[in-house]
């Protein structure tokens, strides 16, 4: 039962990463692309956690935490650049 659920969840997360990649390519404006990249890193955190469950080890937890922190900081930096024309004033 756990194998079927794990493969289904991996397939759904991979499909959502592909959909966000589609939006990041065709996105008509810059905030669309930033939102697509934001959603993509959140989905990649889910993929890494699922891979850690699949190989039965939690050494990938730090990678997921680093991706979460750096993705948030990059999103905030690009949004500040769009808002003010400068990141650190």
């Amino acid at each position, binding site marked *: 039962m756990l194998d079927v659920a794990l493969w289904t969840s991996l397939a*759904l997360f991979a499909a959502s990463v592909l959909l*966000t990649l589609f*939006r990041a390519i065709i996105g008509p*404006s810059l905030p669309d692309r*930033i939102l697509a990249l*934001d959603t993509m890193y959140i*989905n990649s*955190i889910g993929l890494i956690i699922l891979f850690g469950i699949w190989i039965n080890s939690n050494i990938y937890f730090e990678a997921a935490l680093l991706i979460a922190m750096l993705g948030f900081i990059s999103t*905030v930096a690009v949004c500040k650049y*769009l808002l003010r024309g400068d990141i650190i004033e």
Partner: protein
Amino acid sequence: MIGFYTFMEGVIAFFLIAGGMFAFIGALGLTHLKDFYMRLHGPTKTSTLGVGCVLIASTCYFSLVQGGISVHELLITIFLFITAPVSAHLLAKSALHQKLPHDPRTQGHPKEFDEDEENPKPSERAGITPPP
């Protein structure tokens, strides 16, 4: 009477499927909705909820496999639940700053669309008194 491990396996499988479905519905909303302000709604709620469900499943799984309670996945959950509204707020502010077009059926009129100092339109501003 089912055993404890079978019950916990069912709980973990439920959270895995729920997380995958939430993430997929969020990505569908990001792809198919009409304008940016609608597209902002889908991922900011469903993606964090999907990753939250997957992290709850991971916590249950490693607590069950390694014995004891493994709570360090909750760090990512708390971090995502704090940072997702902040990034959504900044994205909405930057979209309003760029005056992205919205669906004409959208109700309400945010004041960021009125502040058009470069090329004011006096025909539209005629009967409107500016707020003090």
